[in-house]
């Protein structure tokens, strides 16, 4: 169908990446910025041309290039918005690294462009094995980004990141092989409609869970994340938090839920239990961090637990909320890492205790940082409020206990974020360098303001983001409906109400 825009979006950064390798420092920077900006334009074009309420899969392409599997691309509303998020964050990442990266610039830009290719590939792939290849390939550039341009302890972090996620994914590969063999197809939409035997679903679910839970990351396999985040360069952290973590959530909503509905319902409590622990434990850990990046990294784990809670609530509010948290967290945590990067570039320290009183000498910075702090807390009017509120409603419908425990995460989130903000921006400067730091440069404003606007847009008018996904969430729900677990809420309307509709309809049936 039509112009292969998805292939173009995948190929363009790849070509630019190869060109970067042969370019000088300056040329590589401009080349990377140009390629990512063009991809952003293409992404916006994709969004405007996407037909809401149209066919489930749009912009499809299919070429049986590889014998066993095909170059099959296509997106639904969920993939669309994640692709838009990726292409939106990429030029920002390039700009954020404009001055911070001084050594081996061409390789750095090439690695980021390669990363963009692979991220778009993951979300656009419609073939099981094509998805796996893109999913797994992302390890290579990220390993290099952390290992070459990372902080002091970068080598340990890069190994941990690589091996942790690799071990998770290889088990998923075996499950994929089994599925392709059983269903006789590798086409994801066909697999989403295939009913796998209930006994096999549990195993398949667990194998996929091993991969997505690590990627997500869920407690207790989250330990790679703080290391990777802290050691990665700023833009690396943005991409990790902004997009790579979303691959876990995307995996759940694309594979685990629609393909293994029975197992999802059976193992709901595993996911819910881990998520509840994650919210409380990682929030408490975040509260005592001395390192800004580590604090935000732990807050990511807590926020991602809202995603899993929403997804496994088996209702529309929950899943839509989870997707909104994914998008909102992509923006907000990315922005927070950028905020940390701004002051790190000036003082080369991530220790909270070295800063203070930044509101005095960096008013613009303090304002934007406050906005993102509030968004991370989930203040109404910002992106995260919509998502967290919806997923908590969804969770409440299925289990009031889950909602109760999860809501404490909102309170704890407010505690650690406000505490962080107070220590950095308020009071008086603790060190002389901190009081001498200059306010945001135009380049830094150019990076942060678009994210701020997007955050507010998502908070004030979430319909723009919910509407493309509505039918796709409906499709997932339709797959889940037969297996959906019962709610623990006993809802009665009025005083003389009959508990459920089927009973009340019986007498009226009798009259006919």
């Amino acid at each position, binding site marked *: 169908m039509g112009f292969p825009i998805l292939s173009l979006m995948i190929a363009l950064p790849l070509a630019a990446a190869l060109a970067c390798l042969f370019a000088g420092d300056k040329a590589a920077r401009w080349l990377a910025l140009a390629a990512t900006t063009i991809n952003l334009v293409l992404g916006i074009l994709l969004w405007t041309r996407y037909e809401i309420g149209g066919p489930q899969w749009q912009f499809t392409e299919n070429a049986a290039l590889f014998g066993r599997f095909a170059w099959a691309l296509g997106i639904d509303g969920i993939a669309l918005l994640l692709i838009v998020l990726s292409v939106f964050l990429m030029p920002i990442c390039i700009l954020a690294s404009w001055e911070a990266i001084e050594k081996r610039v061409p390789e750095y830009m090439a690695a980021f462009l390669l990363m963009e290719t692979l991220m778009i590939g993951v979300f656009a792939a419609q073939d099981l094995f094509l998805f*796996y290849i893109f999913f797994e390939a992302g390890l290579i550039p990220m390993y290099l980004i952390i290992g070459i341009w990372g902080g002091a302890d970068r080598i340990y972090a890069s190994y941990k990141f690589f091996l942790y996620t690799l071990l998770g994914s*290889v088990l998923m590969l075996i499950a994929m092989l089994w599925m392709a*063999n059983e269903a006789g197809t590798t086409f994801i939409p066909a697999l989403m409609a295939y009913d796998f035997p209930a006994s096999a679903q549990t195993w398949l679910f667990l194998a996929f869970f091993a991969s997505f839970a690590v990627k997500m990351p869920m407690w207790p396999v989250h330990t790679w994340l703080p290391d990777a985040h802290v050691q990665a360069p700023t833009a690396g952290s943005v991409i990790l938090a902004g997009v790579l973590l979303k691959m876990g959530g995307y995996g759940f909503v694309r594979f685990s839920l629609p393909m293994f509905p029975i197992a999802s319902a059976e193992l709901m409590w595993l996911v819910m239990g881990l998520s509840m622990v994650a919210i409380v434990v990682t929030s408490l850990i975040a509260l005592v961090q001395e390192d800004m990046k580590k604090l935000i990294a732990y807050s990511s784990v807590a926020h991602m637990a809202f995603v899993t809670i929403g997804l496994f609530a088996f209702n529309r509010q929950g899943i839509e909320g989870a997707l909104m948290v994914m998008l909102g967290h992509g923006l907000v945590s990315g922005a927070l890492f950028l905020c940390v990067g701004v002051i790190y570039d000036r003082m080369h320290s991530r220790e909270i205790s070295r800063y203070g009183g930044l509101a005095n000498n960096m008013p613009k910075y303090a304002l934007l940082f406050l906005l993102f702090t509030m968004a991370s807390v989930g203040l109404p009017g910002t992106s995260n409020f919509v998502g967290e509120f919806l997923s908590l409603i969804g969770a409440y419908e299925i289990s009031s206990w889950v909602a109760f425990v999860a809501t404490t995460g909102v309170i704890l989130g407010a505690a650690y974020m406000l505490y962080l903000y107070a220590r950095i921006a308020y009071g008086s400067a603790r060190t002389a360098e901190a009081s001498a730091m200059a306010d945001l440069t135009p380049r830094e404003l150019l990076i942060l303001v678009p994210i701020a606007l997007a955050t507010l847009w998502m908070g004030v008018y979430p319909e723009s983001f919910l509407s493309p996904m509505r039918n796709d969430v409906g499709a997932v729900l339709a797959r889940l409906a037969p297996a959906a677990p019962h709610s623990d809420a006993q809802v009665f309307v009025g005083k003389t109400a009959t508990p459920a509709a089927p009973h009340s309809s019986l007498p009226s049936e009798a009259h006919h």
Partner: protein
Amino acid sequence: MSMTASLALTLPELILSIGGMLLLMVAAFGGDGLARAIGWGAVALFGAAAFSLTGPAGSGGPGFDGLYIADSFAAFAKLLVYIAAAVSVMIAPGFFARAGGYRAEYPILILFSAVGMGMMVSAGDLLTLYVGLELQSLSAYVLAGFLRRDTRSAEAALKYFVLGALASGILLYGISLLYGFTGTTLFAGISDSLARGIGTGQMFGLVFVLAGLAFKISAVPFHMWTPDVYEGAPTPVTAFFASAPKVAAMALLMRVTVEAMGSATDAWRQIVIFAALASTILGGVAAIGQSNFKRLLAYSSINNVGFALFGLAAGTAEGVAATLTYLAVYVAMTLGSFICALQMRDGEGQPIETIASLSGLSRRRPALAAGFAIFMFSLAGIPPLFGFWPKFLVFDALVRAGFWPLAMVGIATSVIGAFYYLKIVKTIYFDEPAADYAPQGSPLEAGLIALAALAVSPLGYLAIPLLDATSMAAARSLF
């Protein structure tokens, strides 16, 4: 079948042996001055032998009353062997020009070794198998000690010879047991006999034959010679050992298990599964502590043999096809890695082998560093590099045959292997530059590295339909 028709089936071996003898005469009368020309002559012979596979030699079926089989399986393996052998000849002069001691016998020994390997993969009889194996091995022993003034090379040759002779003994003992209890040495006859039930005698014969062959493919627990021989032998010879004889021995193992013992799959499968798991685990764990790059590649080859064996463990045509594809990609990866290893020279041009010497290579020689990275990630089986694909196929074959728990364990062991490949990449890209490094080597070697890198790059995926078709046709000719 007439003698001429039978001889036509062995055309590649005829070309190589007659050509090899002629070149030997040239070497005897022309002296070592002609060594390079003789090398190119050998490469041309390999080309001719490969071309002859398009005729009856590639698909003619059994000849010499079943002693020799020229099917598409043999043709697939021979093509790989010839490519690997030709590359090993091409990269030798550059190495020996620096190390000294290049003589005209080098390409000729490789030619004779390739004849032996051709006989191995085409064997339809235990004795053909043995003769081919010995021809290959004897040439290999000499090649291992080719740098005769170098004590490490001499030690490698001696070790290889002693342990190789032991393995041949074990193999021969197994052959004699099988002959004694089945009454024939023909694969087809053995298969018929085993189909009537396996007694203790046959079982012992089978175990001894497999043990002898496991030595040749250096599968755990018969791998002990590999690191020492790989480290001591001259690097081009190591490249040869890691590629061509591995392919031949794996192909031979597949033919013996499927054609001669196909009716007793359950009996040999457990042995293969054990060897596969032990090889992937030990090949991965033992490599972690290595500081010598050639030793590390030796463990890597043990590890890879383990994965290739998983395909055979499935016991199906898909599994054999997967193993063949594995070998094809493995040859590209391993030759590429060894040619990269040939570039490891210090500022004065002296060869160095420590991994530490690679520190910061990405700053001094970015192209070579990229080559190393591609081969290491590919050997680790990380997509989108093509090294992922054969691993995918062997595990697919296992899952299709119903062995998914084994596939789960097997693929988890690949993570152990990933660790040490990552270590190389880390040394090259993350560490600060160490000592001076020699400038660019010969354009021939650079071209070969580029070619191998291209083959294992994502472009390799476009070759899947072709690889699938040929490896499947080759595998079907066994079943």
